[in-house]
C-alpha cells in the first residue's frame, strides 16, 4: 500500500469502514470518529449538482442511483500518464447545501467534503439517519494515493466537475455530522468556550 511508504504511523487508529455504508455502521459512527473508507463512492461538485437539479426538475432520472451511496465533493486535477487520478482532495461543502436535502430525500445517505453544513442539511442528515464526513482539504496529492480506480460515469464535458466513480482504499476522513444529530465542529467550538 503506497500510503505506508510515506507515513507509517499516521492514523494508526483509523476505523476501517466498507462502502456503501450499512445502516448499522452509520448508527455506530459518532461525530469525531476517524475513519478509513474502502470501496466505491460517487463524486460531484457545483456543476454536477446543478445538472442533478435540472434533471430532477424535468422529471428525469439521475445518471446513477444515489440510494445508499456516499457522494464526495471533489473536482480532481487531471491524471498524468500512469496515474489513476490527479490530486483529489475535498472542496468546500456549503456550496452544495442547497441541493443536499433533496438528494437525501431520494436516498443519498452520506456526503463528504470539507467545512460546515447548513441547518437544513444537518436536519436532513438526522431525519434520514445519514452522515456527513470531512476529508482533509489541501491534501490532494496524498489522497490521490488512496484512490485505486477512477472512471467518469456522467457529465464528461464538465471536466473536473464530471460525475466520477472512485474506488478508495483506506481513505481518511472525520465524521462531522452523525445520525444522532451531533456536529463535530460545534462540539469543538463548545469545548473552547
Amino acid at each position: 500500500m503506497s500510503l505506508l511508504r510515506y507515513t507509517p504511523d499516521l492514523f494508526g487508529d483509523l476505523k476501517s469502514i466498507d462502502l456503501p455504508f450499512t445502516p448499522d455502521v452509520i448508527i455506530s459512527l459518532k461525530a469525531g470518529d476517524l475513519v478509513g473508507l474502502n470501496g466505491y463512492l460517487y463524486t460531484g461538485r457545483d456543476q454536477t449538482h446543478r445538472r442533478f437539479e435540472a434533471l430532477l426538475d424535468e422529471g428525469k432520472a439521475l445518471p446513477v442511483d444515489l440510494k445508499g451511496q456516499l457522494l464526495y465533493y471533489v473536482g480532481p486535477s487531471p491524471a498524468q500518464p500512469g496515474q489513476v487520478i490527479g490530486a483529489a482532495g475535498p472542496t468546500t461543502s456549503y456550496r452544495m447545501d442547497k441541493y443536499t436535502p433533496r438528494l437525501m430525500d431520494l436516498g443519498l445517505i452520506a456526503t463528504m467534503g470539507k467545512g460546515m453544513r447548513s441547518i437544513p442539511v444537518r436536519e436532513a442528515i438526522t431525519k434520514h439517519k445519514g452522515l456527513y464526513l470531512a476529508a482533509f482539504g489541501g491534501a490532494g496529492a496524498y489522497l490521490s494515493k488512496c484512490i485505486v480506480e477512477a472512471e467518469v460515469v456522467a457529465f464528461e464535458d464538465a471536466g473536473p466537475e464530471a460525475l466520477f466513480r472512485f474506488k478508495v482504499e483506506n481513505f481518511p476522513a472525520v465524521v462531522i455530522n452523525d445520525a444522532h444529530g451531533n456536529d463535530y465542529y460545534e462540539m469543538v467550538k463548545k469545548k473552547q468556550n
Partner: protein
Amino acid sequence: MRIVQADEITKAVRAQTIDAATDLEPDILDALLAARDSETSPLSRNVLELLISNADIASREKIPLCQDTGVSVVFVEIGQDVHVEGILEEALQAGVAQGYEDGYLRKSVCDPLTRVNTGTNTPAVIHYDIVPGDEIHISLLPKGCGSENMSGLTMLPPSAGIQGMIDFVVELVVQAGPNPCPPVTVGVGMGGTFEKAALLAKKSLLRPLGQPHPREDIAQLEQQIKQEINERGMGVHGLGGNHTSLAVHIEPFPSHIASLPVAVNIQCHAHRYKKIIL
C-alpha cells in the same frame, strides 16, 4: 534599455506555474513543521503530519498539492529600463495557459454568468507595477477559492479604531471556520481606498511567512490578531487545537480622514507562491 523577449517570459511563467502547484516554498513547509511540533490536539497534529506528507508526495511526484490549483494571480514589477519585445500581457497569459495544460493542473476559471469553463485557466488576474531598474520580477500566487471565498472587506468608520479592526479580522476568520482550510495565513490591507485595501491584503500574502511588518506598531498588531484567532481554538481544519492561523500579515496605507477600509484575504495552509526574476 534592456530587451527581454516575450517568449522568454512565457517559458519562465509556464515553469513557474507548474512549480507553484507542486512545490511549497521552504518558509511554508517550516511553518507547518513548527505547527506540528507545538500542536496541542492529537488529531490536529496527525492532520498536520498528513499535510507535511502531502507536500512531500506533491514535490517528489509532481502531483498538485491541492486539486484546486487556483486562479493565477500574478504580480509583475517591470523595471522602467526594460523593453519587452512582443506583447507582455499575452506572454504572461500564454505562460499560465501552457503551465496548466502541460502540468496536468486543474482548469478552474469560468465565465461568471454562464459558468462555462474557459478551458485554459486564463485569464490570469495580473497586477503591474512600474519600478526602477532593468529587471522583471514576476510573483505568482495560484489562489484556491475555498479560502478566497471566505475573504471580506469593510469600510469602517474611523471611530471604530484599532479594536474595530481587530474585531473585524478575528470574527471573519472565526466565522469562516473550517471552510478555508486552516491553518490559514491572514492577509490584511488596512487603509487606502476600497480597491487599494483589497489589493494590499492580497499582496501581503507574498511576504515570507510570518516575517513581521517593519513598522513596530503594525508588527505588534499582527501578533495580537494572530494570538486572538488562535485562542479561539478552532484549530487545523476546525478540528480543535492551537493553530488556526500560521501568520497575520498587515499592509497599511494612508486613508482619507473619513475612512478606514479593512480588507482581509484568507489563504489556506497550501499557501503556494513562486517568484522569478528575469
